[in-house]
C-alpha cells in the first residue's frame, strides 16, 4: 500500500484551508500531522477519503492510492475504498456512534456493506477484531452510552481492523480521552500496525502523543506545512520557529522541554 499526496489544495469559497505539497505513507508506516485547531489537519484527512467535497470544499491536486488517482474519482469507487482500504476514526467516540442503535448493529451493517454476507461470518469477524483490541464480544450488545469513550474508540478501531484496512486515518482519536486510556489505545494501535502492516496517519494537536506514536511528522499552521521530517529529529531540534513554539508549550514530565528552555 502506498498513498502519495502531491500538491493537495483544499479550499472553501476560494480560501485555501489546507495545502500539502508532498506526503507519502507506505504500509506499516506511521505519519503524524500536527498543529493547532484550524491548521487544516482534519481537512487533509477528509480530502483523502473524498469527504471534503461533501462539506462544500474544492479539492485540487493529486492523491494516489497505489498509483490510482482519488481526486475527482466517482462517489461509487470512493465508497468502495472507504472503510475497506482506508479507515477513519474520529475525535469524539461517544458521538461517533448512533445512540439509539447497539454497537453490534452498526458493526454488522459495516461488515455487510463490504461484502461479508452471512450473519455468522460477520459475528466471527467482529469477535476476532474485538479480541485484537482486547474487548469482549458482549460490547456488541451494548448501546454507546453504556460504553466508555475508550471502549467505543476501540470498537471503531476494531471495525477498521475487521475490514483489514491498509491505512487508518486517526483524527484526534485520543483528545477526548484521559491519559491512561490514551496509552492503552496507542499500545493497541502499535500492535495492530505490526501484525497487520496497517499504516497510520495520526492527526493531533497533542504533540506529546505525536512524538510517541509517529515515525515522521508534518507540522501545519493555518493551512500550510511549515516543517516536515522524522519525528525524533523535529522534536529534538525543530527548525521552524512555529514548531519550536509548539513544542516548547508542551510540558514534558521527567524530561527537558526541547530547546532546554526553563518554564
Amino acid at each position, binding site marked *: 500500500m502506498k498513498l502519495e499526496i502531491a500538491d493537495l489544495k483544499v479550499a472553501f469559497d476560494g480560501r485555501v484551508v489546507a495545502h500539502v505539497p508532498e506526503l507519502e505513507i507506505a504500509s506499516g508506516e506511521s505519519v503524524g500531522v500536527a498543529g493547532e485547531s484550524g491548521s487544516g489537519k482534519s481537512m487533509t484527512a477528509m480530502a483523502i477519503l473524498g469527504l471534503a467535497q*461533501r462539506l462544500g470544499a474544492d479539492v485540487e491536486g493529486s492523491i494516489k492510492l497505489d498509483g490510482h488517482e482519488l481526486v475527482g474519482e466517482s462517489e461509487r469507487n470512493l465508497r468502495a475504498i*472507504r472503510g475497506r482500504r482506508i479507515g477513519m476514526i474520529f475525535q469524539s467516540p461517544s458521538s461517533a456512534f448512533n445512540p439509539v442503535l447497539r454497537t453490534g448493529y452498526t458493526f454488522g451493517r459495516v461488515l455487510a456493506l463490504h461484502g461479508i454476507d452471512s450473519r455468522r461470518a460477520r459475528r466471527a469477524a467482529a469477535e476476532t477484531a474485538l479480541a485484537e483490541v482486547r474487548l469482549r464480544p458482549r460490547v456488541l450488545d451494548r448501546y454507546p452510552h453504556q460504553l466508555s469513550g475508550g471502549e467505543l474508540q476501540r470498537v471503531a478501531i476494531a471495525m477498521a481492523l475487521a475490514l483489514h484496512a491498509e491505512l487508518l486515518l486517526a483524527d484526534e482519536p485520543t483528545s477526548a480521552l484521559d491519559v491512561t486510556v490514551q496509552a492503552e489505545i496507542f499500545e493497541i494501535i502499535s500492535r495492530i500496525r505490526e501484525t497487520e502492516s496497517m499504516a497510520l496517519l495520526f492527526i493531533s494537536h497533542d504533540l506529546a502523543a505525536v512524538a510517541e506514536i509517529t515515525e515522521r511528522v508534518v507540522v501545519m499552521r493555518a493551512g500550510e506545512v511549515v516543517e516536515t521530517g522524522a519525528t525524533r529529529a523535529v522534536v529534538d531540534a525543530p527548525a521552524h520557529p512555529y514548531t519550536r513554539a509548539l513544542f516548547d508549550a508542551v510540558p514534558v514530565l521527567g524530561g527537558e522541554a526541547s530547546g532546554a528552555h526553563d518554564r
Partner: protein
Amino acid sequence: MTRFLARRVVLSLVVVAGVVLLTFVIARIVPGDPATSWAGPHATAAEVAQARKHLGLNRPFIDQVGTYFRGIVVGRWGTSIHTHRPVLSDLKTVVPASLELVFAAILLAIAVGVPLGLLAARLRGRTTDHAVRAVAIVGVSMPIFWLALILQLVFFNQLHLLPVAGEYALRFQEHPVHAYTHFPVIDAALNGNWAMLGSSFSHLVLPACAVAAYPTGVIARMVRASVLDVAGETHVQMLRAFGFREGTIFNRFAMRLAWNPVAQVVALVFAYSLVNTFLVESIFDWPGLGSYAGESIIALDTPAIVGITLFVALVYVFVNLAVDLIQAALDPRIGLH
C-alpha cells in the same frame, strides 16, 4: 424504568391537580354573582338565595375548593348554564366530532409536513428549502378562522365542489347507522353504508384542511430542523467514512434519531389543534367541542368553559405522558435499559 414511569405519572397528577385549582380560580373570578346568573334575570330574591345555597356559595373557601376537587374526581363537573345538562355529559356528546376533525387534520399535517420537511432538509440552502420554509411559516401564521371562510368561499360558493355544513348530509340522519366509534367516517365504513361514507368524508375535507394548516407548518419545520441536526453529528460522518451511501445513512440510521423531537411536537400540536377547532367549527356547523365552546362563551357559561378547559388540559397532559413513555420505551438512553 419503573422509577422513571412513576415520577412522570406523579408529576402529571400534580399538574392536573394544579389545573383543577386553576379552573376553580377562573370560575370564581367571574365578575358578578354566579347565583344571580344561575337563577336567571327575572329571579326573585328568594330564588337567588336558593341558587346561592344550591351552588354552595355560602360555605367557607377551603370547603368550596374541597367539594370542587372531589366533584371533579367523581365526575361531577358542574352543570352547564345554557344547556342545563351536566357538563361532563355535554362533553361526551360533542368531543367525538372534534376528535374526528383533529385526527383527520393531524394525519393530513403529517402526510404533507413530513415529506416537505425531509425535502427541505435534503435540499438545504437551495430555493426549494426556502420555499418550503416560507410555506411552513404561512401555515403557522395563518388565522384559521379566516382560512376556513376562504375555503368555504372557494370550494363551496364558487366551485361547488365540497359541502360546508355539518358532519354529513341531513338525509343520513333519518336512518342513523350503528355508532361503534361515534366517528361518522369510521362508523359509515363499518356499517357498509358507502353513501354515508362518501358524504361524511366530503364534509370532513374542508374543516380538516383548515385545522391542518398550523400543524403542517410546525411539523415541516420540526422535521427539517431535526434532520439537519442529526445530519451534522459525528456518527453520520463516520458512516460516510465507512463507505455508506447517503440514502442508506439517512433511512437506516439517521432517521431513527430524527423522529424523537418530531413525536413530541405532534403531541403538542394535537392539543393545539383541539383548541383551534373552536375557531372553525361554528363556521362549518360542526357539532363538536368547538361549537359547544362557542355557545358557552356567548352565554358566558362559566361551568361549561371551565369544564372545557379542564378537559383539554387533561388531554394535553395525557398525550404528553403517552409520548414520553413511548419515547422512553424506544430510546435506550432514557431510564429503561
